[in-house]
């Protein structure tokens, strides 16, 4: 099957600990999806998952690269970070489990729902992680056929 070229490709850097700019990438992605004419309910789940992934890098990692490819009927996101990695992935997926420090919780994040939100909002979620090296999150979102213009 020939690989379709993406309509839009975007690559952005995410800086760990930079809470002032946290959310910039997902905000930009939201605007692109809106301009591309995707339906609002679809954009909403892409953007929620993207924002949770972006926040995870800001909260836990030193730095990360956010790559997105937007096709006519799907969105592919890869977030690669240099960071502590996730020692127990199964535990990390448990709602309410978090390793975030108190100052992150005071901001309203780090309650242990990020990964489960990403799983609920995406159609496919894959995580590769190495302790003390980093984590790669891959998410795919498929536009339901009834939403296709």
């Amino acid at each position, binding site marked *: 099957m020939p690989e379709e070229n993406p309509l839009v490709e975007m690559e952005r850097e995410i800086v760990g600990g930079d809470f002032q700019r946290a959310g910039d990438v*997902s905000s930009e992605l939201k605007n692109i999806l809106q301009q591309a004419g995707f339906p609002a309910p679809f954009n909403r789940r892409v953007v929620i998952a993207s924002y949770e992934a972006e926040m995870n890098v800001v909260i836990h990692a030193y730095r990360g690269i956010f790559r997105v490819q937007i096709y006519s009927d799907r969105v592919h996101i890869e977030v690669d970070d240099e960071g502590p990695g996730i020692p127990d992935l199964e535990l990390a997926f448990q709602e309410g489990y978090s390793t975030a420090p108190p100052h992150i919780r005071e901001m309203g994040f780090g309650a242990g729902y990020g990964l489960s939100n990403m799983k609920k909002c995406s159609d496919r979620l894959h995580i590769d992680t190495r302790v003390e090296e980093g984590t790669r999150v891959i998410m795919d979102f498929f536009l339901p056929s009834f939403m296709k213009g």
Partner: protein
Amino acid sequence: MRLREIKEILKAKVLVGEELLDREIYYACGSDLLSDVLAFAKEHALLLTGLTNAQVIRTAEMIDLLGIVFVRGKKPETATVELASLKKIPLLSTHLPMYESCGRLYLKGLRGCSELSDA
């Protein structure tokens, strides 16, 4: 219910977005957990929260919330207000605590986000 009416009910001050008070609000949620807001708040809802950092505005932006009320008299820092102004998200601040703010709005007929389907 218009935002203007919400302002009266909560005796709230408008921190930014005075020109957006005619927005019609159909649902509200009260939370200090942003992942919960992302997961459960419906679009075009109002958020009541005790959090005042920039991530509250980001969260509101991601899911198209129509406004934010800070409870217990909390006020965000200037950078947060500027971000809200940029994103056209009105900010209100009330001296009432969370429970009473939500309760007063609910008594006046503003429904919760989980009630969206039976509206």
